[in-house]
């Protein structure tokens, strides 16, 4: 298991964002993180990426603790934050070379070109990030998450705001990345879960309400569609 989460909790003031959740994620499988808005998905992902520290409990990535060994953890993970914040006044290549240098990668020029090809940014690679459309910004966000070939990939709503064509591209990219990495992605779109995820975790009000593979989730709830299952569990 490359990602282990053990009874992790996080409060914002009096509000409990994440309430003692535990789960595992294995390499070669894509884990879908589902839940209504405000359920604690993003908070959990921020804690996995060592950006936030949990109030209690512990999480580890490939055996490294996210609190005590955050530098090692950060080297091993790629993280696409929610809403894809980017430095809009930087050029695509300039930004990617900053990211590559921050991981102290060798052969940065080659890696930047490879990743640009991988996410399909060739036609936009000489532009400023601020000039790109939403779909291409999303690709830049993905590129910064995978440029250092991380073992664990954490994607917070990677497909929000994409058109149907881009959606298919990004999904197939995530699927191909998922063959050798541990991928955890959050989403609201049920078709997406069916299309690319192997396992599902449904989280509601900070608690895990379902943690199973997608086949057994469907088998458990009989003829219901994933949307109906989601509604039944979280409302």
């Amino acid at each position, binding site marked *: 298991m490359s990602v282990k989460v053990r009874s992790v909790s996080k409060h914002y003031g009096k509000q409990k964002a994440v309430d003692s959740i535990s789960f595992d994620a294995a390499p070669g499988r894509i884990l879908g993180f589902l839940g209504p808005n405000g359920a604690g998905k993003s908070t959990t992902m*921020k804690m996995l*990426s*060592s*950006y*936030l*520290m949990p109030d209690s409990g512990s999480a580890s990535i490939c055996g490294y603790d996210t609190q005590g060994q955050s*530098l*090692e953890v*950060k*080297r091993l*993970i790629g*993280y696409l*934050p929610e*809403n894809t*914040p*980017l*430095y*809009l*006044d*930087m050029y695509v290549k*300039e930004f990617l070379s*900053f*990211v590559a*240098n*921050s*991981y*102290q990668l060798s052969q940065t020029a080659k890696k930047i070109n490879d990743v640009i090809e991988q996410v399909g940014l060739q036609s936009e690679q000489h532009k400023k990030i601020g000039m790109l459309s939403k779909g291409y910004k999303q690709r830049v966000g993905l590129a*910064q998450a995978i440029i250092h070939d991380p073992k664990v990939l954490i994607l917070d709503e990677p497909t929000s705001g994409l058109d149907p064509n881009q959606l298919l591209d990004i999904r197939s990219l995530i699927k191909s990345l998922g063959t050798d990495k541990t991928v955890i992605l959050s989403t609201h779109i049920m078709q997406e879960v069916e299309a690319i995820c192997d396992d599902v975790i449904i989280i509601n009000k900070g608690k895990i309400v379902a943690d199973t593979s997608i086949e057994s989730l469907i088998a458990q709830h009989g003829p219901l569609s994933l949307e109906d299952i989601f509604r039944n569990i979280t409302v």
Partner: protein
Amino acid sequence: MYAVFKRELMGLLNSLMAYITIGVFLLATGLLLWFFPDTSILEYGYAELTGFFSLAPFLFMFLIPAITMRSFAEERREGTYVLLAIRPVTDWQIILAKYFACLVLVVFALIPTLIYYYTIYQLGLPQGNIDGGAVTGSYIGLLLLGSAFVAVGIFTSSLSKNQVVAFALSVFICFIAYSGFDAVSQLFVLSYFETVFLSLSVNEHYQSISRGVLDTRDLIYFITFVALFLIATKAVTGGRKW
């Protein structure tokens, strides 16, 4: 850390803001030192740079907050701080990278003023009649003063999402640290508190270095000043309340 430093410096150099503030600084010192009759060295008649060194801190008070105000405030508003925080760098490395990037810009603003030194050197009678030690000391003092103000600016920038708030707050703190403690010390003439407040004043230590004597007490003062504000910045950013 070098990657973050380079990005910060390039970010500053790619923005018009940096050039405008440096330009305004040079324009103001140029006008006040060479053209305005009340303060002009040419009218004054003595070939020395004391006018520049007493003017520069007040310009720094506005110039430096203008350079530092965006460093954390903008990241916070745009939500881009996470892009730095998820890299394998510590919070301290991020703070120091931003700090030194701004400090380098302050040095860039100071370098062109060396031409004033050359001018005075040529204008003195006999030629070269200028106290080089005092000038060197004053430049070192100005650099230390600048590094103290940059630390204040970085700290206030971490406090707010709004760059204007960060700017105003840091001008205020710089002013209090530079002139405020001096003024307060005069309320307690000849008492124990006079020396206490004088020793807290940036101006007092700046003047002391400007005489050309590099005292370890002054050096320790500035290092402590910078460290305090950077530690406060760490406390603010480490909480990730934003």
